[in-house]
């Protein structure tokens, strides 16, 4: 069963625990500038929106890579950058419609979310449930449940 990160911006408080967890998991340092998930703060609307790679089924980044450095992890379905192969040409950063592949000047390679090998650190760290790791076929299940609860089940008043 394939799983996906599911993001519910309505629950996000902007604490950045996810960003710290991501940098720690992948680089062993608490450093939000190295995080693959980014939380955007739309100040005047009072909205905070976490955003990262959605692991497209037909991944533009993977198709665009001239050296085949981006491969599918068979276990998780994540599109994973092989740093040894990546030449830092940045074509994938252009190809990704969402901007979730980014170049890292320090290493001369690109980085993107790899679902942490199936145990996403950001989802574990998130205190509010804004990021969860759920069955890909049913990312909408929780929303359906909420709306289902709002469905009017009261008997109609007699005419």
């Amino acid at each position, binding site marked *: 069963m394939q799983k996906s990160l599911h993001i519910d911006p309505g629950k996000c*408080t*902007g*604490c*950045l*625990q996810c960003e*710290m*967890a991501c*940098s*720690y998991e992948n680089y*062993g*340092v*608490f*450093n*939000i*500038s*190295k995080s693959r998930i980014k939380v955007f703060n739309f*100040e*005047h*609307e*009072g*909205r*905070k929106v976490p955003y990262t790679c959605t692991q497209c089924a037909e991944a533009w980044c993977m198709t665009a890579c001239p050296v085949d450095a981006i491969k599918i992890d068979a276990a998780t379905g994540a599109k994973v950058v092989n740093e040894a192969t990546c030449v830092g040409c940045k074509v994938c950063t252009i190809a990704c419609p969402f901007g979730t592949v980014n170049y890292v000047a320090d290493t001369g390679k690109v980085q993107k979310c790899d679902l942490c090998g199936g145990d996403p650190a950001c989802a574990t*760290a998130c*205190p*509010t449930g804004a990021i969860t790791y759920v069955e890909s076929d049913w990312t909408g299940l929780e929303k359906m449940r909420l709306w289902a609860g709002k469905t009017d089940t009261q008997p109609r008043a007699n005419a």
Partner: protein
Amino acid sequence: MAWTRKILRVDLTNGTCKSEPLNMKLAQEYLGQRGLATKYFVDEVDPKVDPLSPANKLIMATGPLTGTPASTGGRYSVITKGALTGAIACSNSGGYFGAEMKFAGWDMIIFEGKSPKPVYLSVEDDKAELRDASHLWGKTVWQTEEIIKKSHQDPQVRVCSIGRSGENGVLYACIVNDLHRAAGRSGVGTVMGSKNLKAVALRGTRGVAGMKDAKAFMKAATAAKQVLKDNAVTGQGLPAFGTQVLMNVINEMGALPTRNHRDVQFESARKISAEAMAEKRPTDGKSNLVTNAACFGCTIACGRVSKIDATHFSVVNKPEYWGATGGLEYEAAWALGAANGVGDLEALTFANMICNEDGYDPISFGATVGAAMELYDLGILTKEQIGMDAPFGSAEALCKLAEMTARGEGFGKELGLGSKRLCAKYGKPELSMSVKGQEFPAYDSRGIQGMGLTYATSNRGACHLRSYTVASEVLGIPVKTDPLVTEGKADLVKAFQDATSVFDSAGVCVFTTFAWTLADLQPQLDAACEGDWTMEKLALVGERIWNMERQFNNAAGFTAKDDDLPPRLKTEPAKTGPAKGLVSGIDKMRPEYYKVRGWDANGVPTKETLSRLGL
């Protein structure tokens, strides 16, 4: 490393920035942030210095847990000699600024001297330089942040700045970061303004690494987060209602100071409470509260994001105020509301926005308006002098006076000097509800006796955050004590003061202490910081910090006489509520407290006390 081991020293007079190593011996004795920066401050600055002279210094400091995933690990403090008080000042702020300072590789930034012209400090990791700020002078906090982000072409830069009030000499000006988070009290922003320093812009990409035992730290931090989650206040009350959860509670206790402390219960408390913020307004069908928000690393998320009612008189034709922005927290709602008898939630929201936009302390401002309204009520201040009718309860006067104070116009100039100077000028010094020149926050010393002692002995002037005995006397944390009696309060206040000194020096938020005791913080510090951070060591560090601050104040000229409350609280009994008939027992508690502290009858630490603490 939990500490970056680097200090940035900025000489504003000569325009230089230098890196120097952190004194690690002192870090072992004073931990970080409040404690460590105060140690640097008292070692380098003459206690008699005029707060607004170039010889005063201003330190921005992080703690060892700032920038780590410890819950609320994003705090920083500003340490200086306070413009409002002349006492040691230490104002703490959340948001994202503190963590960014750490990520850039700095434990502290020490500002000294005075720049010949307006400047701001720009820091990108190791690179620090002073830049011209003449184009920023005269701008609000909100404008300043926007202009800096644009000119740096970097939306990720974190900014703290002063607004016009800090430039104009409002004595309780704040330093505001991330638009609505503030190092709020004692006039730290006024000191910054006196140095011609408009802002600090930070960008850090180094992060925090190399803790003593990262695995153990993650384990301790995770366990401590669970404690916050499982606690009713930090897990449910604060995220849902913010600190405003207290408004109705404190009012019912008869401890909500109203109309400059004439009353202890406010008939309109409900209208300005958390519950009211969440209700739909009849005008536009929306609630004042939009959502809650967190500071960096915080798993509590007490912050309020509000939208004002666009039809309210204060913002008619002012669309710039219609968007979402920082909303009311309890102290501000009290000071702008109950303290003046104003029960109009939207008016308080507006005045609070102005405080954020132009960077001044809503507690001192609101309480000073309360004093002015009493002077008006007594016929001492007239309509002509104030420029408007200003009876208790006037939302119009509150909003107008907020804008005038921000801009330094008319009577706003007098309000900007605080209640102590205002009341003295008009021959009624006893009407200033303050200690050491700093206005009380939102708890009446008659209905919560421990808070009277807290205010009287707070090293930075009246303040609730130095020993929040409300936790024990009202909420029963960690044990319930009777708010109406003085017995045992000396010990209680000392214990809270010492523990809080540690929390303020660690890099975490004092609101964690609704759920955490020192025993929850200790394993996190011990795993993160080099050295052996036992409970005993931390207790000693806390007490050492408190006594060090006290020594500075004593040397600055404060005496036991300054550990006192205004006569009203000692002679005019509470009129209603559970504390009806009671006055503050401060005169009984003070000598008991000195004894518990190991100080002599004049409030001076004895030789034995000092040597026990290594001072």
